[in-house]
C-alpha cells in the first residue's frame, strides 16, 4: 500500500519502522532535512522536505496515488489542515490525524465528518485509558482486551515470592485454580514460546490469556491481594495526567497531581474540581511525602522527562507503593529497564502506533482482517483477534490435527459468550473469534496465514 507519513517525531519514527517492516511504500514528509536524512539511511523509504499542509508538497509526494495519509506533526492544526488538503485533492484517500489538544477532543467526532478524517488518534488519551484499566487490577503490568472485553492477555512478573517460580506449565492449574494459558514468556529480554514442560523462573515476565471474569480468581490463586486503588498520586500535570484525572474522578478515586508550572497548576485546578493539585518539584522527596506517597495505593509518573519518571518510580517502589506505573516517551522498554522495579511501563507512542498499524492492516485486507492487534513482550510477539468466517480453512477440525506454523499459538476461542482456552481437541467454527499469538517477525494478515 502507498502511505504518506507527515511529521517524523517519535511517533512518526516508530510508525515508519513498523510500516516499512511490513512492506509498504512509504513517503515521509518533514520540515527538518536532518531528520529525514537519518531516516532515509535507516529505512527503505522516500523522503520529502517541506510543509506537509501545502498542496505543492503533497502533490510532490504523489498524494493522488496514495492510499493513506498519516499526519503526525506536533501541531494539531497542521495535522487537520494536512488531512483536509489531501482529502480535497484525492477524495478516495484515507486520512489519520493526531489530535491531542483536550479542547478539540470533545468535538472530534463532529470534526471527523466535517474534515473527511478516517480516524483521529490521541496518544495521551489512549495512554490515560490504559492506565485507568491497569489501576483497576493492580498486579498486572499490562492488560490487552479481546472479544469485546471478554478475554484478556495480561502480563505478570514473577518475583521471588511468586508461587509460580520453578513450576512447569503443566502443573499450573493446581496452583491458580482457573483455566489460563501462558502464551509467551519473556526471559532475559528474549521472548520464548513455551510448551507444557517449560519451567517458570524468577524474573520471568509471563503473558497469560484468561477470560476477563477469571482475572480476580487468577490473582487470588497467585496470592496477590488486590484492592482497587483509592488514592492515586500522579507526578506531572501534562495531557495524560489531565485525561487520567478526569477519568478517575468519575469513578470516585482520589487523585493528587504534583506539577511544577504554577500556571498549568491553576489551569488544571480549574478543569478538575475534585482533584488535589500541588505545585512543586515532583523529584523532591519532600514534595512526594507531602503528596502522601507513603499512603497512596498507586503512583503514576507522567512527567515529560523519562529519566525523572524512572527515578520517581524507583523511589515509589522503595517506599512500598503497591502499584507503580511509569510513562516512557522516548525509551523502548528493553532489557535494562526490565531489571528495574518500574512497575507497568506505558508508552503512548507505542499504544498509538499499534492502533494505526491495526488500521493499516484492516485497510489492506478488508475481509478477514484482524479485529484487534496488540504487540506484547516488548514488541517481540503479537496477539491478534480474528473472526472465523466462511473463507476460513479447517473449521471444526481438532487443533492437534492441523499443521500450524511454528511459533504461532491459538490462545483462545470465543463462541458466543463462552470462552475456551484451547487444548488439542478444541476446534473453531464459523462465527467464533480466535486469538492468535505469534512470536517473531512473522506478520499474520488473516487467519488462514497461520496454517502451513
Amino acid at each position: 500500500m502507498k502511505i504518506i507519513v507527515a511529521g517524523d517525531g517519535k511517533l512518526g519514527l516508530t510508525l515508519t519502522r513498523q510500516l516499512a517492516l511490513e512492506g509498504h511504500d512509504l513517503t515521509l514528509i518533514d520540515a527538518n532535512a536532518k531528520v529525514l536524512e537519518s531516516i532515509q539511511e535507516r529505512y527503505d523509504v522516500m523522503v520529502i522536505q517541506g510543509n506537509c499542509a501545502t498542496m505543492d508538497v503533497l502533490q510532490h509526494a504523489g498524494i493522488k496515488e496514495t492510499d493513506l495519509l498519516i499526519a503526525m506533526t506536533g501541531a494539531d492544526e497542521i495535522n487537520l489542515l494536512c488531512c483536509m488538503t489531501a482529502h480535497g485533492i484525492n477524495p478516495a484517500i484515507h486520512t489519520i490525524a493526531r489530535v491531542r489538544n483536550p479542547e478539540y477532543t470533545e468535538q472530534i467526532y463532529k470534526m471527523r465528518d466535517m474534515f473527511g478524517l478516517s480516524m483521529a488518534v490521541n496518544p495521551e488519551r489512549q495512554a490515560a485509558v490504559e492506565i485507568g484499566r491497569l489501576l483497576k487490577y493492580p498486579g498486572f503490568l499490562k492488560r490487552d482486551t479481546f472479544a469485546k472485553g471478554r478475554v484478556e492477555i495480561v502480563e505478570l512478573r514473577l518475583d521471588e515470592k511468586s508461587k509460580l517460580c520453578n513450576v512447569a506449565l503443566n502443573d499450573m492449574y493446581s496452583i491458580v485454580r482457573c483455566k489460563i494459558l501462558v502464551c509467551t514468556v519473556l526471559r532475559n529480554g528474549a521472548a520464548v514460546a513455551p510448551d507444557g514442560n517449560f519451567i517458570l523462573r524468577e524474573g520471568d515476565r509471563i503473558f497469560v490469556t484468561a477470560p476477563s471474569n477469571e482475572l480476580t480468581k487468577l490473582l487470588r490463586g497467585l496470592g496477590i491481594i488486590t484492592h482497587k486503588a483509592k488514592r492515586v498520586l500522579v507526578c506531572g500535570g501534562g495531557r495524560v495526567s489531565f485525561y487520567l484525572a478526569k477519568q478517575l474522578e468519575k469513578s470516585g478515586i482520589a487523585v493528587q497531581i504534583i506539577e511544577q508550572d504554577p500556571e498549568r497548576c491553576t489551569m488544571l485546578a480549574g478543569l478538575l474540581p475534585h482533584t488535589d493539585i500541588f505545585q512543586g518539584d515532583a523529584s523532591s522527596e519532600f514534595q512526594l511525602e507531602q503528596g502522601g506517597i507513603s499512603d497512596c495505593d498507586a503512583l503514576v509518573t507522567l512527567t515529560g522527562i523519562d529519566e525523572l519518571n524512572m527515578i520517581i518510580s524507583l523511589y515509589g517502589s522503595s517506599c512500598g507503593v503497591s502499584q507503580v506505573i511509569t510513562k516512557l516517551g522516548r525509551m523502548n522498554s528493553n532489557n535494562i529497564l526490565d531489571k528495574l522495579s518500574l512497575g507497568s511501563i506505558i508508552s503512548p507512542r507505542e499504544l498509538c502506533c499499534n492502533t494505526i498499524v491495526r488500521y493499516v492492516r484492516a485497510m489492506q485486507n478488508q475481509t478477514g482482517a484482524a479485529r484487534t492487534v496488540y504487540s506484547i513482550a516488548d514488541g517481540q510477539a503479537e496477539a491478534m483477534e480474528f473472526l472465523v468466517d466462511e473463507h476460513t480453512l479447517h473449521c471444526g477440525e481438532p487443533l492437534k490435527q492441523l499443521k500450524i506454523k511454528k511459533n504461532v499459538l491459538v490462545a483462545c476461542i470465543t463462541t458466543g459468550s463462552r470462552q475456551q482456552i484451547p487444548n488439542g481437541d478444541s476446534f473453531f467454527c464459523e462465527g467464533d473469534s480466535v486469538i492468535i499469538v505469534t512470536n517473531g517477525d512473522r506478520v499474520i494478515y488473516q487467519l488462514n496465514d497461520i496454517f502451513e
Partner: protein
Amino acid sequence: MNYKMMGRFIGQILLVQCIFMVPALVMSLCMKEESSVRSFLITIALLGILGLGLRRLGRSAKNRFYARDGLICVGVSWIIMSVLGCLPFYLSGAIPSYIDALFEMVSGFTTTGASVLEDVEALPYGILYWRSFSHWLGGMGVLVFLLAMPIAGEGGSGFTMHLLRAESSGPNVGKLVPRMKSTAQILYILYIVLTVLNVIFLLAGGMPVFDAVCTALGTAGTGGFGIKADSMAGYGPYIQNVCTVFMLLFGVNFSCYYLLLLRQVKSVLKDEELRLYLGIVAGSILLIVWNLRGFYDTLEETVRHAAFQVASIITTTGYATTDYDLWPGFSKGILLFLMIIGACAGSTSGGFKCGRALLIVKNMLRSVRQIIQPQKVQVVRLNGQRVDEKVLANANTFLAAYVVIFIASFLLVSLDGFSMMTNFSAVLACFNNIGPGFETVGPACNFGAFSVLSKLVLIMDMLAGRLEIFPILILFSRTAWRRK
C-alpha cells in the same frame, strides 16, 4: 565491519555474474570454439562455487549495515568481479597475459572500452560477446541489478540506499519511488527497453544480429568495445546515425525517462542539467563542423562524423567512425573538453557529469559575488530549488579528489616515456571511462604498449572513475578496515 553481510552480498554478485556468463558459454558452444568453451566452463564453475560458498557463510549475517560497509562492499565486489570475470580471456588464450586480461575486463565493467588488443576480429565469438556484455552489466551496475532481485533488500531497511549511492553516478542520487527494489526494477526495465530498441533499429539497417547485439550492449553501457578493428567506421551512414542517437539517449539521466513515462514533460524540459548537456552537444557539433570545413568531401559526411564523435566522447562511449586524431587542433580541443565533462548524472556514462560541473560553476560564481557583496546571503539553486550546502561541499571534494588522483596517475604513467599528450589523454580516457584518447592511445590504436605498472594504475583509475572515486579511495584507508 559486517564481514558476513559483505560475504553474502559478494556471493550473490558472483552468482549473478555466473548466470550472465551462461549465454556466452552457449554462444561458444554453438560456434564450436573449444578453448573458450573450456574457459567459460571453468570460470562459471568457479564463480558458482565461490558464490554459493560465500552466501552460505553469510547466512547468519545480521542486517546491520552502514554507509562504510556499503561503500567497501561496492569497491571490493567490483574488484573481485573483474579479477574473476577476466578468467575466460586468460584461460582461452585470447589474451595471453593476465594483467592484459584484467585490464580488458575492468575496461569492460567500468564501461571504458579501452582495449589492449591488437586484432579484435581474431577473437572467438563467445569472448567478444562477454566483452560487450560486461559493458551492459557494468553500465547500470551489478549491485543495482541485485537490488532489483527479490532476494535482496528485504525488511524495509535503508542500507540499500548506500549501495545505490555508491554505484549510481552523480552528485545527488535519489530514489524514484519509495521502495528501493521498485526503483532498481524501474531503472533496469528502462535500460532493457532502450537496449532492445537500439538492437531493433540496428537490425533495421541491415546489421548482422551478432554485431547489432554487441554494438547495442556497448552503446547501452556507454562502453565502446567494438567488434571490428575499425570500430564503427565500416558500417553505413544509417547505422552510424542510429548509434549517435542512442549514445546520446544513454547519456541522459534515467530519471528523466521515468518522469516522461509519468507524463511530466514540463519538468523534464526544464531540467537544467539536461539543457546544459544538449546545449554542449549541439554547440560542439556546430563548432567542429565549422572547424572541419573542407576536411571531408560532403557536408553530410562532416556533420555525421562530427556528431558521432561528439556523442561518443561526451557520453564516454568511445566508438569511432573516423580517426579524430587527424582532425585540426581546435576540434581536438573541443573533444578534450567533452572528455572531461561527461554526460548527465544518473546515466550510464562516466566522467565528471554535467550536473556536478553545473554545481561547481554555480558555487564558484556565488563565491565571486560573495566577494563583491559580503553581506548578501546567497544560495545556489538548481531547477529552482535550493541546493544543500552539503551537496555543494561534496561536489567540491569530488573535484579535489579527482584532480589529486589525476595528477598522481599522470606522473606514474609518464614513467613509460610516451609523449605528454599520450599520457594525459590515456589517464583521462581511463579515469573518465571513455576508451580512446589521443596520439598513441588514439581511436586507431590501443593500450597494449604500456608497462604493467601503468596498466595497474589505469585499472585503478577506471574503477575509481566508474564508482565516482570514494568507494575505491576508502579501500586504501586504514580506518575503513579497523574493527570498532
